[in-house]
């Protein structure tokens, strides 16, 4: 129906409903008692349609539907006139008829409508509660596009996970040996070290179903929902076996029980208890392996870590130099590197960087290269060494500063000298034998910047190239013990 037409119909319907209702309930309204002369007047105007005689009162209805009562008795002449006009004259109390029933009927209909409304609403609520109890896991069925080859380093973790892949593919081989493959594998390591990436690679390697969920998705406002979701998740996994269940950020529900401040978090503990039961409740042939990742393994409940649950803990160590090189190579794949970029040198510079740091570094360098190329209007786009250098700078999103002796020198020269000069004049001896002198004006994790005294401008030197550093005459060093002799 046209909206305009619908509106008109609703208006008409409501107006008609009002008029009808008014007409029907009108009789029960306390009727105005008017003087008898009014009746005579209306009689003269021939405006009367109906008269009901009730004792010594007259109920008078006019043609327009108006209704009133007069006290008095009809004279014979008036009765004659009424019948001459064709006015209906009745006697006795008015029949209740339809008018008496309608309001009741209306009430019943309305009550029924309200009941239906609430029942339906309650029904919807029920469905909503049931939906809450469903696990929110995602089934990764399409290839993730990540394989173990795409993960640099983490060799031990890859080895362990490859066992899992093989177990799910050829269980007979493992069962023949009578061994029990770990049912739970806990990946732990600092943020960005590649836990989730490993899981995705596992999903890419295995032919088993891969169910992925974040532990925080078990958590809901309502008590009992978390445990219900855990049950649902494991039921789904068992139905689709062989399957891998990956629970990210396990510490969201795996926190040690009874450790809340003041009071325990009951709901989280229910969820954890359910998880513990489900981890241990599998029959051996269920062919479901649970992988979990966390960066707070120290706060996990000890029951989670016992044998038979997450008994295989894979700590992902910081990347060694060779690993960093492989990670850099993986991320540099398909990127236009300039000839002056040495990934090996970069890998050496990025001591302590995680996989995510390195990915960020390469990406940032790429972004900078695009920006530089756009500014230059250069036709060919390539990522140069200078882009990586800039990307390493903390202000540009590189990784954190580490305090070292260069920083100590800078602080010393500005605050702690007997007569602070505010300047740190130093002589740097570089690895290849060159000597640089100047004022130390800036330093970060990787580079120091010197402004030379003879006006030759500033120079940036990688810290790794510095063999030794000594303060120059003219700077009054208060603390002789701060004689720096080389950097870490």
């Amino acid at each position, binding site marked *: 129906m046209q909206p305009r037409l619908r509106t008109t119909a609703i208006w008409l319907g409501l107006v008609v409903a*009002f008029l009808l209702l008014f007409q029907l309930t009108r009789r029960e309204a306390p009727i105005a008692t008017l003087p008898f002369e009014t009746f005579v007047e209306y009689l003269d105007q021939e405006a009367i349609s109906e008269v009901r005689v009730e004792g010594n009162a007259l109920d008078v209805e*006019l043609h327009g539907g108006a209704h*009133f009562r007069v006290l008095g008795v009809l004279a014979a002449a008036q009765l004659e006139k009424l019948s001459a006009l064709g006015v209906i004259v009745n006697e006795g109390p008015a029949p209740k008829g339809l008018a008496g029933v309608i309001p009741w009927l209306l009430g019943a209909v309305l009550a029924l409508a309200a009941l239906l409304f609430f029942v339906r609403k309650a029904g919807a609520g029920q469905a909503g509660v049931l939906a809450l109890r469903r696990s929110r896991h995602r089934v990764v069925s399409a290839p993730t596009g990540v394989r173990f080859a795409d993960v640099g380093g983490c060799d031990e973790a890859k080895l362990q996970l490859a066992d899992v892949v093989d177990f799910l593919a050829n269980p007979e081989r493992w069962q023949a040996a009578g061994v029990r493959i770990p049912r739970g594998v806990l990946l732990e390591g600092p943020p960005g070290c590649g836990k989730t990436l490993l899981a995705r690679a596992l999903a890419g390697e295995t032919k088993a179903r891969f169910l992925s969920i974040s532990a925080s998705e078990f958590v809901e406002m309502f008590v009992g929902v978390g445990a219900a979701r855990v049950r649902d998740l494991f039921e789904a996994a068992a139905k689709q076996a062989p399957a891998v269940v990956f629970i990210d950020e396990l510490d969201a529900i795996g926190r040690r029980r009874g450790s809340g401040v003041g009071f325990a978090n009951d709901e989280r503990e229910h969820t954890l208890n359910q998880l513990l039961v489900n981890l241990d409740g599998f029959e051996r042939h269920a062919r479901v392996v649970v992988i979990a990742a966390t960066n707070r393994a120290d706060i996990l409940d000890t029951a989670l870590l016992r044998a038979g649950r997450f008994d295989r803990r894979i700590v992902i160590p910081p990347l060694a130099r060779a690993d960093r090189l492989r990670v850099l190579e993986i991320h540099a794949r398909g990127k236009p590197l300039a000839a002056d970029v040495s990934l090996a040198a970069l890998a050496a510079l990025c001591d302590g960087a995680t996989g995510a740091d390195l990915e960020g570094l390469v990406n940032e360098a790429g972004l900078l290269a695009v920006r530089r190329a756009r500014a230059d209007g250069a036709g060919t786009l390539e990522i140069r060494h200078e882009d990586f250098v800039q990307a390493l700078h903390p202000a540009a999103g590189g990784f954190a500063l580490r305090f070292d002796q260069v920083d100590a020198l800078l602080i010393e020269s500005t605050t702690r000298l007997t007569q602070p000069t505010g300047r740190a004049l130093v002589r740097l001896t570089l690895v290849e034998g060159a000597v640089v002198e100047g004022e130390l004006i800036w330093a970060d994790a990787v580079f120091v910047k010197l402004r030379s005294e003879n006006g030759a401008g500033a120079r940036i030197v990688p810290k790794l190239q510095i063999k030794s550093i000594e303060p120059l005459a003219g700077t009054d060093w208060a603390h002789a013990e701060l004689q720096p002799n080389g950097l870490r």
Partner: protein
Amino acid sequence: MLDPGGDWLAGRLLTWIPLLLSLAVHEWAHAFCAFQLGDDTAARLGRMTLNPLAHIDPIGTVALPLLGVPFGWAKPVPVNPVRFRREVRMGAGMALAAAAGPLSNFAVALLAVALLAAGAALAPGLVLDGSPLHGLLTTLALINAALGVFNLIPIPPLDGSRIADVFVPERLRPAWHGLEAYAPLALAALLVGPAFLGVSLFAWALGPVQQLLRAVAP
């Protein structure tokens, strides 16, 4: 004729139906005015319609009035002054869009009185006190007059406060907006207070309207 008595439910329906129609007009007027000023927010939400169903608030429009609470509200029409046409000042436009609601109610009330007068002049029997048409027109007139007056009270979130916003000097704006926090209290006091004192603001405000109605159609 607000309450012809009889069955309580029928009686409430007899005030509720005109109320529903009046609220529809009120909300439509806000939306229409905002649309004319360039803001199509309400129109795109389907609120620029006289269809009462679009403006119903389950609690304020249905439950409370039918339970006999002499207070209610409809779903508010959103107005976004940022979308006004460039030549419309935002404050003035806001006030105009706010004023459109009560003004539309006064218009409906006047229309009902005019129809009543016309009916009394042309077909006296049709609009006699106690006839359905008379009931409809008087109820419409009274309800709309009440809605108009009530909404012009300058207490947030009533329309009157949005109109008053424009007239508050820049200097007093912070104080004015600070007072807004107490608005619900003030509104409650206004609704409940007179009842305690034994006076009815509405009886006072609607007295003239009732006199007018009586004068038009005896």
